[in-house]
């Protein structure tokens, strides 16, 4: 059995460790590229949302490398991702690409549902398997902590791309790491390298929270590298959703003591109910970001994503009540980089302008020059 799985940001690194830990041979799909997207778009229904298309591309590319079993997460609740595994299986069968599929779903009855599937896959004595899963978990936490560091550095580094280079290097090393000690060493080394990166000491930074559907949040191919683009524009990106948290919320049912999302506390009165996907969290996180002094929020969603459309429709009320500007971006395979870049730049200008005025109101002067502060010409980088 050679297992593969869909890409979602850095998830591959964690899944690979966990699956290898239980004694499986793993085929990581090639990194998401335009080819992945093209393959997926060719075979998926046109109106399906982007995650399905890219995943399908991953499976087709993994097949070329000899994979024969897919492990993926499904979903429950009023979002069609719950059916995607089934739809994908049918599509793959139609085009003559045979795969076995093991779908993990948030356990709605008992944790044993997950356990049964693990048992089916497991090839090793369970102690060893558990060790692998724990190692994977430690890697997830390591990746997330490094990524937060990168998010902090991107708008501050003198030459864009340096923090990301260290991060990519560390990801490669983490992939190979086999023990907790090694992981710790890698994280320490990467952090000390990051600390050495020269900074520009420019004007005040903006902080922008990003919320939205998990896949568009975490997969750079799909969101056209939005975090790096914003970083290059002098914006510090904060995100409520990280892999470790998502794994805890969805597969371990929040068993581990991690700060989770609590949309039931933050989203009302704007949205009082789970609406599928991450719609509820999007609203809740927007409220949280506003409270923590972010200058703006960007909501990301695949085009036609129902839960995010629901969230989008209450955003004006959140904006009004909490005084935080929200921009919603829908992404699909047609999304052009130029259009996205223009929107981001305009949004950032707008926030900078507003922030400049707020500061000036406090001082009693208003400087339009605020518009020019920060990483003015860096925007060329990604256009």
């Amino acid at each position: 059995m050679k297992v593969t799985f869909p890409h979602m940001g850095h998830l591959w690194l964690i899944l690979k460790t966990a699956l290898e830990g239980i004694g499986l041979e793993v085929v990581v799909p090639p990194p998401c590229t335009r080819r992945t997207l093209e393959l997926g778009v060719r075979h998926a229904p046109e109106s399906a949302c982007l995650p399905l298309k890219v995943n399908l591309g991953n499976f087709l590319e993994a097949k070329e490398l000899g994979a024969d079993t897919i492990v993926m997460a499904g979903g429950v609740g009023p979002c069609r991702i719950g059916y995607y595994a089934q739809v994908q299986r049918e599509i793959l069968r139609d085009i003559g690409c045979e795969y076995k599929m093991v779908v993990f779903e948030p356990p709605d009855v008992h944790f044993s549902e997950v356990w049964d599937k693990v048992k089916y896959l497991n090839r090793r004595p369970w102690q060893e398997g558990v060790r692998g899963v724990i190692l994977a978990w430690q890697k997830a936490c390591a990746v997330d902590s490094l990524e937060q560091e990168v998010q902090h550095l991107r708008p501050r580094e003198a030459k864009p791309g340096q923090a990301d280079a260290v991060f990519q290097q560390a990801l490669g090393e983490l992939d190979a790491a086999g023990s907790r000690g090694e992981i710790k060493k890698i994280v320490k080394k990467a952090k000390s390298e990051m600390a050495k990166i020269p900074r520009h000491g420019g004007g005040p930074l903006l902080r922008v929270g990003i919320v939205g559907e998990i896949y568009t949040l975490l997969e750079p191919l799909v969101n056209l590298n939005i975090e790096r683009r914003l970083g290059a524009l002098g914006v510090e990106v904060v995100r409520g959703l990280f892999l470790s948290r998502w794994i805890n919320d969805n597969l371990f049912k929040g068993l581990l003591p991690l700060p989770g999302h609590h949309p039931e506390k933050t989203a009302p009165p704007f949205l009082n109910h789970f609406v599928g996907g991450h719609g509820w969290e999007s609203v809740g996180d927007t409220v949280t970001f506003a409270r923590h002094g972010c200058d703006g929020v960007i909501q990301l969603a695949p085009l036609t994503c129902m839960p995010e459309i629901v969230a989008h429709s209450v955003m004006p009320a959140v904006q009004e009540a909490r005084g935080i500007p929200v921009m919603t971006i829908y992404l699909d395979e047609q999304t052009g980089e130029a259009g996205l870049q223009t929107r981001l730049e305009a949004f950032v200008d707008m926030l900078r302008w507003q922030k400049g005025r707020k500061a000036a109101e406090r001082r009693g002067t208003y400087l339009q020059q605020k518009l020019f502060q920060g990483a003015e010409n860096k925007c060329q980088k990604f256009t």
Partner: protein
Amino acid sequence: MPKIYLGIDVGSVSTNVVALDEQGQVLTTVYLRTRGQPIQAIQEGLRQVVATLGKDISVAAAGTTGSGRSLAAVMVGADVIKNEITAHAFAASFAVPGVQTVLEIGGQDSKIIILRQGIVTDFAMNTVCAAGTGSFLDQQAARLGIPIEEFGRRALESRSPVRIAGRCAVFAESDMIHKQQQGHPLEDIIAGLCEALVRNYLNNVGKGKEILPPVVFQGGVAANAGMRQAFNRALGTEVIVPKHYGVMGALGAALLAREMRPAVSAFRGFDLTGREFRSGGFECQGCANHCEVVELREGRQVLARWGDRCGKWSNAVAV
């Protein structure tokens, strides 16, 4: 030597250049068709500026905007590179202080910008739908055999505009043909089309935005009296069309350049109209992204590269 501020707006349909004096007064404006050749259009624009103002001028600062802003910036040496939305908002609030809503409809896209107390608070942009842009109006005018200049005037003659489905260019066109065949007078159809486009714009681009007066209507389509009237009716307020409505992006870029007042401008001199620039492209085979990398060359020297996702090429040249 009088100092001037230059603004260059390179869009897919038109390339505009504006020159301002130190007080922000417009000295000259140039409107050109880009015709897929931005380099030539930029050079021609600068040539026309020199032709009008004479050689005896010095550029104190230059700004670029529009979808070709990066290319233009590298080519001419710009001090400010700004997105279209900021540039348009800036120009509108300069032309009409206190403006609260900017409606902009150009050749290829349309946008709405909401300002409160001189600051942008919200905006939206439409780049995908052709209905409601200048190109679509041009097309329909041509199909009806009316010069576009007369299109608006004919719309004003209408007494009862017909209702045309304007959600998308394809529907609008087929519905217009249908109404023509039913024998509706031409002016009623033209007026109906204007109303449909305005409806479409307000529903798609302006959705959920609070449109408060003063409302400025700019972009090439603002020349069209029929569209102006349709907006007046739909909004229940008189839209203001600024004097330089067709080149507001370039005006905004020039104003932003003036605002910045660099000690020394990065402008590379008017003689660049005579230099040889070439843009070329290649497909990188470095990974499965197969990025289409575009490069701008002057003679043999590569000035800049764009279009790579990984930064491998754009980092390779020091701009």
